[in-house]
């Protein structure tokens, strides 16, 4: 690989855009692909676009030639609403798992950036913050405050977005009340079924770190096992 190609790939990745490297295994020819790129065989472009859309690197055969398509997708995103205790281990675990993490809490005394290294902190109101962040299908949203004033507006924006995961901390009873309030806002049962509540896999988690682990495990499960179902929705 040429160093200028590598530098270009890194620059595009740092800008948060998708990029792919196509390598012809016989001969070693290499092309760095970006969306809407011109001058490349259309059959190869079609294969690259499919791989990028699937978010999977793979070796394909085009015109009898083997080509390895190395896909670099932008990092997955996690939006955490509520700078509560659980948010600290959750943010750290998510960063380790490769997520870009944004923490939203309008209560400035909570959202102290020093408590959250490697995390973007927003003190906007959750509906404004989430509208700006625009969750896409590579985004997970988790609310942690229990406070309807803060959690509900965030969940409403998340439900109108294609976020691949939505989770809300709270007991069964808290969650039932929450669903009633969201129902009053016009969300039907099918839409609200996207919310994982009580949040996280049931592993008997007690401490903040354990609860964060159960949430991160559930996000991973949804991402890896139910990806096809989410993307079809």
């Amino acid at each position, binding site marked *: *690989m*040429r*160093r200028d190609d*590598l*530098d270009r*790939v*890194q620059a595009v*990745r*740092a*800008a*948060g855009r998708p990029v792919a490297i196509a*390598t012809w*295994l016989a001969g*070693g020819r290499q092309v760095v692909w970006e969306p809407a790129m011109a001058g490349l065989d259309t059959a190869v472009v079609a294969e690259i676009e499919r791989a990028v859309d699937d978010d*999977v*690197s*793979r*070796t394909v055969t085009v015109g009898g030639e083997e080509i*390895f398509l*190395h*896909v670099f997708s*932008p*990092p997955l995103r996690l939006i955490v609403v509520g700078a509560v205790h659980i948010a600290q281990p959750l943010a750290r675990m998510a960063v380790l798992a*490769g997520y*870009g993490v*944004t923490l939203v809490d309008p209560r400035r005394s909570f959202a102290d950036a020093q408590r959250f290294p*490697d995390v*973007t*902190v*927003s003190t906007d109101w959750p509906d404004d913050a989430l509208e700006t*962040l625009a969750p896409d299908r590579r985004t997970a949203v988790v609310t942690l405050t229990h406070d309807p004033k803060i959690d509900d507006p965030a969940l409403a924006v998340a439900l109108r977005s294609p976020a691949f995961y939505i989770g809300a901390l709270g007991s069964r009873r808290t969650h039932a009340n929450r669903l009633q309030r969201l129902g009053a806002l016009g969300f039907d049962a099918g839409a609200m079924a996207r919310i994982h509540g009580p949040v996280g896999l049931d592993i008997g988690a007690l401490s903040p770190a354990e609860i964060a682990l159960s949430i991160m495990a559930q996000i991973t499960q949804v991402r890896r096992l139910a990806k096809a179902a989410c993307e079809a929705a």
Partner: protein
Amino acid sequence: MGEGKLTRIPDDDVLGRAAAWRREGRDVALATVIGTWGSSPRPVGSQLAVDGTGAFVGSVSGGCIEGAVVREALAAIGDGRQRTLEFGVSNEQAWEVGLACGGTVRVYVERLT
């Protein structure tokens, strides 16, 4: 979003390390998993960067074939040619570099020029 649109690339980013090594003037080769069959520890796209002394970052397996891949990477640094390697239980070197999990892995090795 505070620091503009820049996305933080993880510290364990193998390509970033490879680029940094090259900037320092080190010889560098990249090994990339381009295919897997059966169970295999690292998915397609996993990478290993090797410098001219044999130091490496990243992984292409759970440690079963790294030694052999590093040898081939040093050879690629030496002759400048890319190569495609295949490892699996059917490999005649299985005793030396076989995958305990019983899968097969294809690895592309190239020099970073």
